Each structure stands twice: as C-alpha cells, then as structure tokens.
C-alpha cells in the first residue's frame, strides 16, 4: 500500500471524517441556494452573517451536548436537560424581573447564581436516582424531563416572563472581539471540561466506568460518585445553556425554552463518535456534531422548507450521517463494489459506534 493510499484511508476512516463531509455539503448547498450565505459584514465593529448566526445559535446546544457526552460516556443518558434549561432560565429571569433596576450587574449575577444553584440541586437529584438508588438513567431523568416542564411553568406562573436587562441579554446576543459572546462562553466551558477530564484522571475513570462498570468496581473505583458527578455537571451545562436561550429572546417561556434540546444533544454526541453504550468519549466530536445539527436547522429555515416537512428533512440527514458513520453499513456498501476494501474497513474499525 502506498503512502498516499494509507493517508487517504487514515483520513476517510477518521471518526469525524463523515460528519465534516456532511457539514461541508450542507454549507455548500446553502451557498448554492443563496450565494450570500457565506458573506460576512462588519457593522458597528460586530461581524454579521449566516455563519456567525449558526455559531451563535449552536452555543447552547454545544453546552448541553458537552454535559451529555460525559453522561453518555458513563453508559447513562440525561433526558432532563431541556427542562433544566427552562428552569434555570426561568429562575434567572424571575429574579431579574423583581429587581428595581434590571440593568444592575449585581442583580444579574445573583440571578445567574440562583439559576445555576437550582440546576445543580436538580442534577444532584438525577445523580441520586441513578447512582444511589439505581434507577435506569432513561427513566430517572425522564421524571425530571416531564416534571421539570411543570416546575418551569410554575416559576413563570404559566406566563412568558419578559425582562429588560442589558447585562443578561449580553449572554445571548452580546459581542466580544467582533464575535458573539455566546461562542466564547461555549468555548470556555468546553475548554474547562476538557481540562477537568483530561488533565485530571476524571476522563479515564469515566471511560473506565462506562467501558466496564463491573471491572471498574473491582479495580476499586467508586463508580457511584463518578456517575453522580456527571449528572451534576450535565445539569450545570444545561443551566448555562438555559441562560443563553432566555437571554437570546429576553424572556423566559417555561414551555418552549430548551424544548427537545435533549434529543439534539444526544444526536450531537452520537455523531461526534461517542458510543451510546458508554466508554470512550470525544468532546471535539460532540462540538462538531452540535455545529452540524445547528447548521441543519438553519438550512431548513433558510431554504424555506415548510414546517410540516422540516423535521422529516432533518431526520433524513441525521439517518444518513449515522449510517455512513457505522462501519458495518460502510463495509456492506463497500463490499458490493470492492470486496477487498470492505474487509480492510472492518479490521480497522471493529466497533460500531452508532447503532442505526
């Protein structure tokens, strides 16, 4: 095998090769449909354009998906993140709305602290159900997914709570160095999580627990603590995402904020190459997955695809991504053309990362 062939194979079998291809195809399709898609304008020192919008809007999804990555790496799942977004956003907005001066920085910071605090408590609740009581993660977090919506509506008293606080609004639409502030926030959290998991042994221990919980226990790992911790981390990420979502529209809607974001987050994690069975996790893959999904959402709107078919369109693209990522599917597809290439694919990537 020549070097070039080997290089080509290393590229095409890379975990993130196909998600990147699909992302590029989506961007190209958008550009073909509307040539101004790629253009950027500088106004008042801020960059504007579709690409910037995609980055800004994907920030909350990136946050939620990062937390979800850790949960999934332990072999669990967190369905309650959408509700947590709504709750934390609602609490922050409620606190701000009661301030005499909504623009006071102190009031906004207190609001953020309150929202984050409540989310941490609820994350601990999830962790308690899963790690201590031993309820299956999908059921344990389903409880808060459903009940949390009710809680968020209680906080806003069923109304859409509108605020007018510039410091809070900045979280969603503010700018820093010509780019949206939200991107820097998401990036900061990503760097923080990457540092905490990869600079300490937390990442290794999470992967060990997700890879083989029984073996990990017998190696002396307190897997319960680790499991508990990832649900709290996931809730914290959801809280920050919730602030962004509500700040974006300067209002808290208990019903709509973060609706179905848990599903997008799970998709982002899977597209990023982390197995739903737990084990190895890939934070950069998750970020790419989140960008892909947000691009898809933006594409749906930009191309004037009717709302009735929008979800279907999204589903088709996601299925396509998952299928071409699945080594088994690729092997079958390749075997039809060249049997030799197919067997090579199987040996290089023996583990299916996506259950189609």
């Amino acid at each position: 095998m020549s070097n070039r062939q080997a290089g080509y194979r290393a590229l095409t079998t890379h975990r993130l090769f196909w998600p990147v291809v699909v992302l590029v195809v989506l961007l190209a399709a958008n550009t073909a449909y509307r040539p101004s898609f790629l253009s950027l304008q500088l106004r008042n020192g801020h960059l504007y354009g579709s690409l910037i919008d995609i980055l800004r809007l994907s920030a909350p999804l990136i946050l939620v998906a990062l937390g979800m990555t850790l949960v999934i790496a332990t072999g669990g799942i967190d369905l309650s993140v959408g509700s947590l977004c709504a709750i934390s956003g609602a609490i922050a907005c409620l606190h701000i709305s009661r301030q005499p001066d909504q623009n006071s920085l102190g009031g906004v910071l207190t609001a953020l602290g309150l929202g984050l605090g409540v989310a941490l408590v609820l994350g601990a609740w999830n962790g308690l159900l899963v790690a201590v009581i031993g309820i299956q993660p999908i059921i344990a977090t389903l409880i808060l997914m459903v009940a949390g919506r009710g809680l968020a509506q209680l906080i806003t008293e069923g109304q859409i709570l509108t605020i007018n606080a510039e410091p809070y609004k900045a979280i969603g639409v503010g700018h820093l160095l010509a780019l949206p502030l939200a991107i820097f926030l998401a990036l900061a959290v990503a760097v923080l999580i990457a540092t905490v998991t990869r600079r300490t042994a937390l990442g290794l221990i999470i992967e060990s627990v997700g890879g083989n919980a029984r073996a990990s226990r017998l190696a002396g790992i307190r897997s319960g603590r680790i499991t508990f911790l990832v649900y709290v981390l996931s809730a914290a990420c959801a809280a920050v995402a919730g602030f962004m979502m509500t700040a974006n529209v300067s209002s808290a809607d208990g019903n709509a904020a973060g609706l179905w974001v848990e599903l997008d987050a799970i998709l982002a994690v899977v597209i990023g190459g982390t197995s739903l069975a737990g084990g190895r996790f890939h934070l950069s893959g998750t970020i790419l997955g989140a960008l892909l999904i947000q691009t898809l959402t933006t594409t749906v709107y930009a191309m004037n695809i009717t709302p009735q078919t929008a979800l279907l369109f999204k589903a088709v693209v996601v299925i396509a991504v998952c299928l071409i990522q699945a080594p088994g599917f690729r092997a079958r597809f390749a075997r039809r053309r060249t049997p030799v290439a197919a067997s090579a694919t199987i040996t290089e990537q023996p583990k299916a990362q996506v259950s189609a």
Partner: protein
Amino acid sequence: MTPSQPVLTMTGISKSFPGVRALDNVDFRLFPGEVHALMGENGAGKSTLIKVLTGVYDTDHGTVTLGGEQVSFTGPMQATSAGVSTVYQEVNLCTNLSVAENIFIGREPRRFGAVRWGEMRRRARALLARLDLDLDVNAQLGSYSLAVQQMVAIARAIDIKARVLVLDEPTSSLDAGEVAQLFRVMRHLRDDGIAILFVTHFLDQVYGIADRITVLRNGQLVGEYATSELPQLGLVEKMIGTELRVLERLDEQPRRDLADRAEGPPLLDVRELGRRSAVAPFSLTIREGEVVGLAGLLGSGRTEVARLLFGADRADHGSVRVNGTPTTLRTPVAAVGHGIGFCSENRRAEGIVAELSVRENLILALQAARGWLRPVPRRRQDELVERYVRALRIRPADPDLPVGNLSGGNQQKVLLARWLITEPRLLILDEPTRGIDIGAKTEIQRLVARLSDGGTAVLFVSAELEEVLRLSHKIAVMRDREMVTQLSNDQSLDADRIMQSIAVGAQREGTPS
C-alpha cells in the same frame, strides 16, 4: 436392562473455534431409559457437545445418529421436532403467564385461528399428571418455586414427543428438597423410556441419579463408565486429569513448606465468614508472605470465597481482622484500602476494560486509589508501564494498544500488573492461569513465588491441583460450597490426598461445621 440399541449415537465429533479445539473426535452414546451424566471441568467441551446435539452449532467432523437415522440439525427447532429437547440452566419461561400458557406457548391448540383454551388446559393437566405433578394450570408460573418452574420447562420439553431430554445444569439454583422433587420426575421419565442427558457440577447428584457417566477433558473423550463401577475419587481424577504434571517440569522448584511461614504475623484473619446461598461460613488465616491455595471443583465455592475476602460480595455472617484489627470488607474500595487486590476469574467481564489502552488498564487500580483529582503523572505512568510490560513480558509491548486486542494470557498479565503496581499486601488470584498458554502460565507461577518471597500474601485459586500444590504453603479445599478442610503443604501432602478431600470431603479438620 438397557436395550442393546442406543437411541442416540454421536461418532467422531470435532468442533473448532478460532484458536480453540473445543471438541476433538468425541464419541457419545445415549440409551433409551437411562440417565446419563456428562461430566468435565469448565472448558472440557460439555456445552459444545450439547450445542452440537441440539443444532446450535454444526460440526466440523462426525455424525449424529438418532433412532437409527443419521441426522444433521441446523437449529434447535429442528432438533426439538425430531425429539431432542433441551432444558437450560436458567428457566426461560414467562413467569407472568399461566402454567398452561407456558407449556403451549408458540404451539397453542387452535381452531380457526382462535386458541382453544379448554383444550389447552386439559392437555396441560394430562402432561403434568404424567410427571406426577399436581399444579393449578391456571395459576401464574411465577407463583411457583424455581424447582416447579424447572419441571414445567421439562413438561414443555417432553410434550413434543421427546425421545432425548437434555438437562443442562438444571439443579444449580435448587435446594436439596427441590432437587429430590426434580429427581423423582426424572426417574418417572426414565421409566417411560426417555433418554436423559444430565449435566451438573454436583458429584452427589451424579451418584444419586445417573446410570452411566461420560467424562470429557480438554475437548477429548476420557471414557464412558457405569456409575456403579466408577468411585467418586476415580471420577474426580478423570475430570481433572493427571498429565498436568508435564507442565510443572518446565520449572522445577523445591516444594515449598509451611514451616517457614507459620510464624509470620497473620495478615488477614476471618472467622465464620459466609454468605447465604453462596458459601457456608468458613474460617481462614492468611499470613504475610504466605501462599494459600484454594482447591475444589468448579462451582464448589472457590470463587465465592475469593469474592467475600475482597468485598466484591458482601458477607452476611462472620468477622474479619486485618493485622489484628477488627474491620469489615463491605466493598472493593474497603478491601483495596487494606492493601488487598483481586484478579477475577472472569477476565473479560470483570477484569479488563477492553476499550481502554494497556497503559490505562495498568494504572487503573492505582488511579482509583489516588482518586481522580490526583492523576498519576505521565512520567510515572511511563515508568510503571515500561517496568511492568518488561517484567511480565506483556506482548505486544505497545502501551497504547486497546487491551482487548491482546491475547488472553497477556490480558491476564495486564490485570496482574494492575494490582502489582498498587503494591498490595494480599493478592487474591482467581484462576489466574486458566485458558492461557503454558509460557504465560509458568511466568505467572514464578511471579506468585517471587511475590511470596517478597512478603506479599497470595490467595491462589485454581482447579489445577499440581499448580496449587507447588505454589501453596497451605491448601484449603472446597466442596459443595463448603470449606471442608485445610491442609498444610508438607512433604506428605500430594494430589491424591487433595482429590480425596474434594471427592468425599473426608477429614473436616480446621473448619468447624
């Protein structure tokens, strides 16, 4: 009394899996109206033979003749309809359905597509009466004991005009009374002319019910015997084999003696430690630098003892002292805190984390002990990994390879090294040499001897008596989930005496009963 024509003949059966010769030219006969026990240690090929018989596997070589005709089943359904029915260890029935529904599920008597419930109940009653069972066929299966459920499974199996009934470890979860009940049903069926193939790990049960015994070892036929002509000791000898001595010559060493360790301070001292339905209360003292062997057949409670001493299972009886201080071993974390390490016999499920690299697997126990906030520095990792990869000759010597890609022997070495890195005071090794090649085996044996010389205590669990004899200062013998005796390994002790204890549990010295 047995008819001259066997109902089932398997001739020259061979079956290989990648890297393993599971069955090598095995012959097996089954006569109508007999209970025939299939015996052998783990990995002897019992389950492979059963799976060949019931059509789960096809054979590489050999023929199967049923009732005079050569057959070749391609699946369990086909075997069942030809009259070969199987009841497995785990009852795979639906406990939420009624007894009658369970017997007829998938083949309910129907008329115009509708189930004929009355007919189904009537036929279920008739079937159970044939087994001499008086059950309410409308009651939920789950309301009956496991033994009864097992018998309903048998009723389901023999309904299909079975000529051969395979019972694969049906008694492993039954108590003595339930076993007696099951045996009554088995005798009933035998008298009806059905040939029963019976697999169990309990020697008493073999002698309680089987007419003949076939012994397999390492995929080969050892022989077929009438139960009345094969004493228990002979059976154990045939199951374990004697040619293991060959292996030991690879590394001749003077036999170790208890005397030089008897004076050491006790490291771990347990009194009457036990766990219901796992192992009867036992007492055991392990001294610094002492190698304690744990011998016994599969299912005799060896693993259960090891797990209790590591806190992998929680004891519900007895007391523990470490270095003379009373304590408990409730969790592995607690045991690790006392300087105890444990390599499970189930390497894949309870040992390695296949997806992670050799390096990560090696440092896992050390990292767990330090907590996640204090990662093992990269330089120290490299140092440890390099040292142990070299010391234990782990191959391939690439620390970044996923450990799942390594061979079984090398995975075992990684596991051992994982604990050695933590510098334990007591290392519990459950079957560390099973299923690995001879080279790796001797290396591990040498390592155990070296550890002991360095003052580390080792609890060495193994089914291979020669290995236990050569390494241990003291040998505890398990039989039917009870520690029947503890023998000091002086010059007078030999494999025969241990086999004697395994077979009959003779002298109960050392353990109050």
